[in-house]
């Protein structure tokens, strides 16, 4: 497995911290390749057969499959191990970040050189969907601050994303942004966005590919979490990429109408809420110039998936602090777009190849409600 790029802001792991993180990565790979696939055999051979004998039909949806599988010892053991691997991952990174936090904060304070900007808004309210639980089990979530000018949550996230993705997001964790940018340049070579906005940009790992794809463009990123943005700013500056970051909620920003040619998000929508998602799409409509485009990269909707596959992809809803994951994946995205006054013929839902997996052999490593690993990303697109 390729190593993560040791850019200027990435926390430095000691020998034992790295060994601990290596173990978690191997543990996750083992679960994904050696244990998780067995769940389907248990389902097919035991759980489904039991259900059929009783009901004279196969389970209809993922909820019926979940009812069956949560009684299966094999599934329980895998689930418990998967949850434990997630907790160990955060722990192995948080311990390392905490040890060097003063140095990271100092590096963050000294960031500069690439010409990007950072605008924080301490008055911005944290949305309820961030406050309710710590999303995907990161202790403290995206937002918790431990010290002045804190960057800890960002530093933890940057390293943990790499371990979680088992390296499949590439050495810069930028596969999502890179896959979208590659697709855009290939499919829309005439499209030359002058202003680009990345919603819920966290540490800016998906934002940077747009700076590289469109060097003339002005690239903005927003997020609700200050420690993410401070880290994102320092990270981008360390990598020599100019991004303008501001602390804002994607449901309602302070940008003027028709500010952007391209608005993107990367695995953001499933971390919002049923109420918020409509407002995010409407805000995209308001901010886009005529001829502009919004692209939200996610993993595919559940529609059309066999009940077992949908059940496995829904694991995170119940086991990894992703409360909106299941509801989101049942939504009619085209309807959401038209409700926000996008024209139906401009709305597309497509799969695009992963830039990283294109460049390498496909790994096909899938965990529970995974992001990535299938060699392709799902894009929800609407033209203004």
């Amino acid at each position, binding site marked *: 497995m390729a190593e993560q790029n040791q850019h200027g802001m990435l926390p430095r792991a000691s*020998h*034992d911290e790295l*060994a*601990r993180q*290596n*173990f*978690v990565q*191997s*543990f996750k790979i083992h679960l994904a390749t050696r244990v998780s696939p067995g769940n389907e055999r248990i389902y097919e051979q035991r759980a489904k057969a039991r259900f059929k004998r009783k009901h004279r039909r196969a389970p209809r949806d993922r909820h019926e499959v979940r009812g069956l599988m949560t009684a299966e010892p094999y599934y*329980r*053991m895998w*689930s*418990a*191990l998967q*949850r*434990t*691997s997630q*907790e*160990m991952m*955060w*722990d*192995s990174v*948080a311990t390392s*970040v*905490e040890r060097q936090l003063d140095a990271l904060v100092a590096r963050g304070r000294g960031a500069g050189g690439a010409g990007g900007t950072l605008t924080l808004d301490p008055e911005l309210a944290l949305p309820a969907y961030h406050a*309710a*639980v*710590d999303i995907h*089990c*990161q*202790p*403290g*979530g995206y937002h*918790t601050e*431990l010290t002045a000018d804190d960057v*800890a949550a960002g530093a933890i996230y940057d390293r943990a994303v790499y371990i979680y993705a088992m390296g499949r997001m590439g050495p810069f964790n930028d596969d999502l942004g890179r896959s979208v940018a590659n697709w855009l340049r290939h499919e829309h070579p005439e499209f030359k966005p002058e202003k680009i906005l990345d919603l819920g940009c966290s540490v800016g790992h998906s934002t940077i590919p747009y700076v590289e794809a469109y060097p003339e463009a002005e690239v903005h990123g927003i997020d609700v979490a200050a420690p993410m943005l401070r880290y994102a700013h320092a990270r981008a500056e360390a990598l020599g990429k100019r991004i303008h970051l501001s602390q804002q909620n994607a449901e309602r920003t302070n940008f003027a109408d028709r500010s952007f040619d391209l608005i993107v998000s990367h695995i953001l929508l499933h971390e919002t809420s049923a109420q918020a998602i409509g407002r995010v799409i409407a805000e995209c409509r308001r901010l886009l110039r005529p001829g502009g485009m919004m692209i939200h990269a996610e993993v595919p909707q559940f529609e059309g998936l066999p009940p077992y596959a949908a059940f496995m992809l829904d694991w995170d809803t*119940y*086991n990894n*602090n992703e409360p909106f994951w299941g509801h989101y994946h049942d939504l009619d995205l085209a309807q959401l777009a038209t409700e926000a006054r996008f024209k139906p013929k401009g709305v597309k839902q497509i799969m695009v190849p992963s830039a990283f997996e294109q460049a390498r052999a496909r790994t096909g490593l899938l965990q529970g409600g995974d992001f990535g690993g299938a060699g392709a990303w799902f894009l929800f697109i609407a033209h203004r």
Partner: protein
Amino acid sequence: MSRKAKGKRPTYFENPECDKLLAITMALAGEVAVVRERLDTIERLLEGKGTLTTAEIERYRPDEKIAAERERWRAEYLERLLRIIHHELESVEKGEAPDSYQRAIEEVSS
């Protein structure tokens, strides 16, 4: 820094203690991997410096005295590790009734 993510942790087994035991076991497995990797680093550094080779480690056979010391260590180690297994049997052999501890509390309290 908090080490617990906000949001109630699911339980996976009939007995919630099993959830905890599994997490403890995996944490231990992780620490064994850390020690193993550190030892591997030491061996490779020593080999790089020409102090010893991994082949020498593989060829190494303890003499009788050292072999006996190692055997003693392993026996003590297993005794410590599996202490809990012996409790039940020892309790039976000593004739400890299931309610004997409760009786002891009552006895010293009356």
